[in-house]
């Protein structure tokens, strides 16, 4: 990261105090992602850091100054983050420097949903006031591209998180039945993942009659009861070592209609075909076009859905609504990139939509699922066979 920042002519990379995601009240990923750069560089839950590009030691700031193994003696903010950050920058000789600030706006591969950035205003305004001759500019990508390539330790954490998420899904399959309050289902899944050591990362749950869109819940749905024929879809995520892994497994409380089966098959095919293509060097544009054209060869439709995985609000975001900017399309996969991969398949008339998937890592051999599991639509009901492929 220092090397990239130095190449860009920056004297330091500065991660300022960022807003508290829980208070921001935006999406789950944004909530977890607001302070992700600080976590990535310090292992503190909330920290600011000044990282000079000339390899002098970093200066970290935490609320109480309590240290950890990486940074035994951070500076305490004692509630005055603006002052503490300004003094750290001045102490590092940055009063006339070119300072790269991470989190001022959305990056290409981090803070991916935070169009307006994540930086706390009042503290940052104090820094601007105290360093009038410095040039502060956005450098979100300087940290983002370092985060984009995962180390073996980070991949191991994601793998563990994915296995916990899968355990949560298994609990969901055991528990889901018509007549059950959705809050019970929600609690059962969360309880399972927490007892396995995941940090709390809310289950995102949808439950509604097959073919009828329902709202998304990120807390126990009040007064909602499961019914025969409901399709339960969800994003089940677990956090281990600060990294977020996500797995998906739709569950139908009833028999799978014949019309759905070819769509489920198509989704499975495009999932695995996409993995084959995810080799280092592949431009994202090639992957987008491949996935978006895959279904047509089978008389149906398919679209890409893939997000970066890591410390929170990771990018890039490849969504059905976005065919990819030129800059994004030119971005090439690298060994150690991690994603949640969940392409969408549609019937020819687009009345049926199906998506499932989970966390994957890019290897020299292509994309690798972080937990081995088959992709399918689970049919779970006392009145029908347990599952269908």
């Amino acid at each position, binding site marked *: 990261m220092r090397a990239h920042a130095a190449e860009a002519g920056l004297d330091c990379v500065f991660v300022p*105090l960022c807003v*508290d995601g*829980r*208070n*921001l*009240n*935006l*999406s789950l990923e944004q909530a977890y992602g607001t302070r992700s750069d600080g976590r990535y560089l310090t292992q503190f839950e909330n920290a600011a850091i000044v990282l000079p590009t000339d390899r002098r030691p970093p200066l970290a700031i935490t609320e109480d100054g309590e240290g950890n193994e990486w940074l035994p003696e951070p500076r305490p903010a004692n*509630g*005055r983050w*603006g002052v503490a950050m300004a003094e750290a920058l001045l102490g590092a000789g940055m009063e006339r420097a070119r300072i790269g600030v991470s989190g*001022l*706006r959305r990056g290409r591969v981090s803070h991916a*949903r*935070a*169009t*307006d*950035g994540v*930086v*706390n*205003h*009042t*503290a*940052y305004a104090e820094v601007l006031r105290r360093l009038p001759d410095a040039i502060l500019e956005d450098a979100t990508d300087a940290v983002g591209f370092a985060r984009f390539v995962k180390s073996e330790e980070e991949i191991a954490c994601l793998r563990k998180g994915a296995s916990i998420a899968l355990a949560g899904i298994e609990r969901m399959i055991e528990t889901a039945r018509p007549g059950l309050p959705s*809050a*019970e289902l*929600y*609690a*059962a899944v*969360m*309880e*399972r993942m*927490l*007892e396995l050591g995941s940090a*709390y990362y*809310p289950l995102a749950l*949808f439950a*509604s009659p097959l*073919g009828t*869109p*329902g*709202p*998304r*819940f990120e*807390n*126990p*749905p*009040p007064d909602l009861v499961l019914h025969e024929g409901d399709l339960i*879809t969800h994003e089940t995520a677990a956090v281990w070592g600060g990294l977020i892994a996500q797995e998906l497994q739709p569950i139908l409380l009833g028999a799978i209609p014949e019309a759905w089966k070819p769509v489920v098959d198509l989704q499975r095919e495009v999932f695995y075909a996409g993995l084959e293509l995810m080799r280092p060097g592949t431009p994202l544009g090639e992957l987008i*076009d491949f996935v*978006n054209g895959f279904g047509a060869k089978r008389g149906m*439709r398919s*679209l890409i859905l893939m997000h970066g995985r890591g410390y929170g609000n990771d990018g890039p975001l490849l969504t*059905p*609504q976005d*065919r990819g900017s030129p800059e994004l399309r030119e971005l090439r996969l690298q060994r150690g990139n991690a994603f949640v991969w969940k392409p*969408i398949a549609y019937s020819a008339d*687009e009345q049926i*939509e199906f*998506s499932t998937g989970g966390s994957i890592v890019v290897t020299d051999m292509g994309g690798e699922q972080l937990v081995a599991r088959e992709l399918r639509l689970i049919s779970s009901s006392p009145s029908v066979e347990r599952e269908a492929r």
Partner: protein
Amino acid sequence: MSDPLPRRRSGGVYTQVWDGYSLAERDRRWNAVRAAAANAGFDCIFVPLGNGVDARYLTQFRASCVVLPADGHPAIVITDRGSRNTWLPEPRLTSRQWAEPVAEALLDAGFEHARIGVAGLQGGTFAHVSSPQGVVSHSPFAYVLSQLPNARFEDATDVLGRVRYLKSAEEIACLRRAAAIARAGLDAFLEHASAEPAVLQARMLGRMLRLGSEYFPQSLSVSDEQVRADINAVWGTQIAQVVRTVGADDRRAREAFELGLEHMKPGIPFAQLVHAMSAFGAEPRLQGLGAGDDGPLLPGADDLSFEANTAFVWKPVAGGVSFGEPVLITAQGAEPLGVS
């Protein structure tokens, strides 16, 4: 590539949150904030991006930005795509782009030369008490400043926070339910206190989630002999907290708790409670309860007096052990929301 995109049938982006307060409650909140803003000389209260707690208080949306004119003109609310509720059936919608529509809202309301009270710019006495640097997101706020160079933006955290501090009957009902859920969490804590911390956390949260609580972080402190839990439950956005320690003799802390209740009556200064605790040999620990990061705090706010229809977690510490319960201040005095 040129084919129209299929419409998404499942998934989607609209996140449903609890939004069960009545229209009368909306009007009570808005009118109270308007009156407080006018009294403070503000032309409007502005809740910018980053201040999700105050925004939810005023809109019942998960995420929004709010411009609430003090003179009774309609509120302008910008919220996530797909959001609508009974309070705001037709809000302005955005999709991850907040800066421009928010600046536009202030300009549309005619505030280019106004005195604008910003909620969340600093930590306050009644709200955002743990965020002395405030909660406002920089880039969209800087954009707003650039688009309204002749307006004056000043902190108004406590203008809105003071309104939040005084609870309505609907809010008190929600707080009671949150307290009951927290009590269920306490039962789980006492049943599983000897379990591994992750399992203990899971059992407590599992119990409360089953009862419909929204998530709020719990605090567990585990030492060789003691386990302390600060157990939080949420219903109707109201957060209730109970505090217990297993493995320690908490009789003195319970006595301090009971003694403190006698000093929590409308009109009694907080300082009197502090004095009583000092005489007893306990540390007063008091924090406002409500929609999140509420105040006032003891120690700290010694110059205030108790008022009816306010709520606190009262958790004195005696002999190094804490005992805490949610407490409602009524006209008659303090009402613990369920001690056992």
